[in-house]
């Protein structure tokens, strides 16, 4: 059915993936916000056990942070290569992104091994333990998910299945990746800078 002529233009619609991924990011923002709020509320409130000042060292984590932030740059470069139909460049930058993400995860694992093994600091130790592992842990979980997604794309790409026309969907994944990085900036500031 049609209606009478009118001066309303056909509204220009955003692609589904735009709104879909922004919705996902919105909901995740509030998830992390809740964890951060609880972390801040309990800062300094542990009755016993170690404090952030005693336990957390900013050195190793800073390196991890640089790696993660760099991976946001490399994923943009990967997309740019894909859009220029540069398969080799795309795969190369994407692999680097995955590697930097994996570096971050390995670095986190090293930090945690030290905390748990040497300092016997666990989720159960005190309030700080509970909030720290939950906040940093769920972020790491999201990084892992992102690394898996990017690896999957890389695998598909190395089998020749990714063309320039897929660039939009891959951009959505990259948005997720940027989001994970931004959350890390917030977590890093709250846990390792302000909190100590």
């Amino acid at each position, binding site marked *: *059915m*049609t*209606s*009478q*002529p*009118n001066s*309303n233009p*056909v*509204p220009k*619609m*955003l*692609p*589904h993936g*735009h*709104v*879909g991924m922004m*919705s*996902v990011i*919105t*909901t*995740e923002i*509030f*998830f992390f916000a*809740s*964890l951060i*709020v*609880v972390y801040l*509320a*309990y800062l300094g*409130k*542990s*009755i016993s056990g170690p404090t952030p000042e005693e336990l957390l060292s900013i050195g190793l984590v800073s390196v991890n942070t640089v790696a993660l932030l760099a991976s946001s740059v490399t994923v943009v470069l990967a997309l740019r290569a894909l859009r220029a139909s540069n398969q080799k460049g795309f795969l190369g930058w994407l692999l680097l992104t995955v590697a930097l993400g994996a570096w971050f995860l390995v670095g986190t694992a090293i930090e945690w091994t030290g905390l748990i093994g040497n300092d016997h600091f*666990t*989720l*159960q130790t*005190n*309030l700080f*333990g*509970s*909030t720290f592992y*939950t906040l940093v842990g*769920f972020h790491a979980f999201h990084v892992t998910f992102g690394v898996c997604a990017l690896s999957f794309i890389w695998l598909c790409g190395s089998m020749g299945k990714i063309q320039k026309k897929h660039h939009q969907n891959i951009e959505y994944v990259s948005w997720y990746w940027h989001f994970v990085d931004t959350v890390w900036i917030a977590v890093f500031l709250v846990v390792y800078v302000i909190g100590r």
Partner: protein
Amino acid sequence: MTDPAINPLSSKLHSWVTTADHKKLGVMYVVCGMFYLLVAGCEALMIRWQLAVPNNDVLSAETFNAFFTMHGTTMIFLVGMPILLGAANYFIPLMIGARDMAFPRLNAFGFWLFFFGGLLLYFSFLGGQGLSGEEGAPDVGWFAYAPLTSTTFSPGSATDYWIISLFVAGMGSIMTAINLVTTILTMRCPGMTLMKMPIFAWMMLVDAILILIALPTLTAIQIMLLLDRQFGAHFFDAQAGADPLIWQHLFWFFGHPEVYILILPAFAYVSEVTPVFSRKVLFGYPLMVVATVSIGFIALGVWAHHMFATGLSPTVLAYFSGATFLIGVPTGMKVFNWIATLWGGHIRFATPMLFAVGFIAMFTIGGLTGIMLAVVPMDWQLSDSYFVVGQFHFVLFGGLIFAVFSGFFYWFPKVTGKMLNETLGKWQFWLLFAGFLLTFGPMHFSGFQGMPRRIYTYMPNRGIDLYNMLSSIGAAVQVFGFGFFVVNVLHSLRKGKPAGDDPWDAWTLEWSTTSPPPPWNFATLPTIASRRPLWDSKHPEDPDWKYE
């Protein structure tokens, strides 16, 4: 592929179980939600039976505590959410002139998460251990305050069932919300700007955004509670220095928007039904939109009005009181808009309209008693008393459920191609209306007399005996109302009058296609010029777009 000629039932079942069609999923959501409505209604009946007289022993304390927990949890998460999201699923694409939702497979995934989450919650009756190790179902209240939910005070797995089942179902809700936001923002047909889409779509857009913002907080605290209970964390462990109010703040940051998530669709149904049955356009559409968006914003900032008795500072109390008063303004605007729509119309009192008018009347009362609760010193008396139980049932039953029935009677012909029986519908309405008033009206008074909530029995001669008896009689009356509903649905599915495309002479796009719609919804996707495309085509001499 099953050959339908050989085994028609199994292939039909297969098509439903594997569907990603928004209409089939919508039907499944609503059917499940209606089923749980009856289940939670039975739980309520048992509660009212136990409370009919003082010192009753129909239910033990443990069983009663499990029943009121399950009643609340079921009604909100397994009745409200699925029916509302299911109806949105069905009608949003039709109303905006689309063929399906933006992400059909995500849609299906979301449904099955809800489905299995619900099963898990009810499985708890068979497994698990409650507060004192007897009943399996959760018995900590639907809001599960810490530290009652810690393993110290709730050993056994009942609380874990609560956490995990709602976590799973909540994921489903978030997925549907993502789908709704995307669909509404990206799939409107040509000509349908945001200010020309049905008001139903605006309500669901704000609703879905609220879900995206509020539900993650519940997810976060559920995770924290599970970590406390199963992995030795200390989030809500007072002995480790934790503050039990953290649970409350975060829970209500979710919980208050949740009640708006529940009521916005009700506003949507009433806003669609009232104009059609008054034969007038919805009064004041632009300000309705503004009011809806305002409610969405303000709803995020009033959560601590559920915590007025927890010892907050006067400044905090004053802020939350003020914000709660403020949300009454856009809500009131909507009520006035509906009444103005009725005003000057030719009102037809078919069943959908009876329920819609019942909604307006009852929701107004619930809103006004809610304003009373926003007055902090009054709340210090009334909170956690039966006054609150009465108040929220006025908004959730007299409000939400009445609106659900309004929408159900209005859109059943579109979904099934058959009309529901008007006589049975009217019987249902009047019985429910009478039963509802009799059940929840007296609660305001027993609250004033000092009857607290969530008690499995009470002492005689404290001034509340009569009110409790009336409430329980009202519940019995409601049974008949629901009975008429079930009979009506079952009868009409088989023998209902054929509905045709547009039985109510309505104006939005879903009435332009067949009843039920074909899988592709529309033969050709429409182009529209106004908020009421079918009014334009029925009244070419006086189309809406001249006035909007």
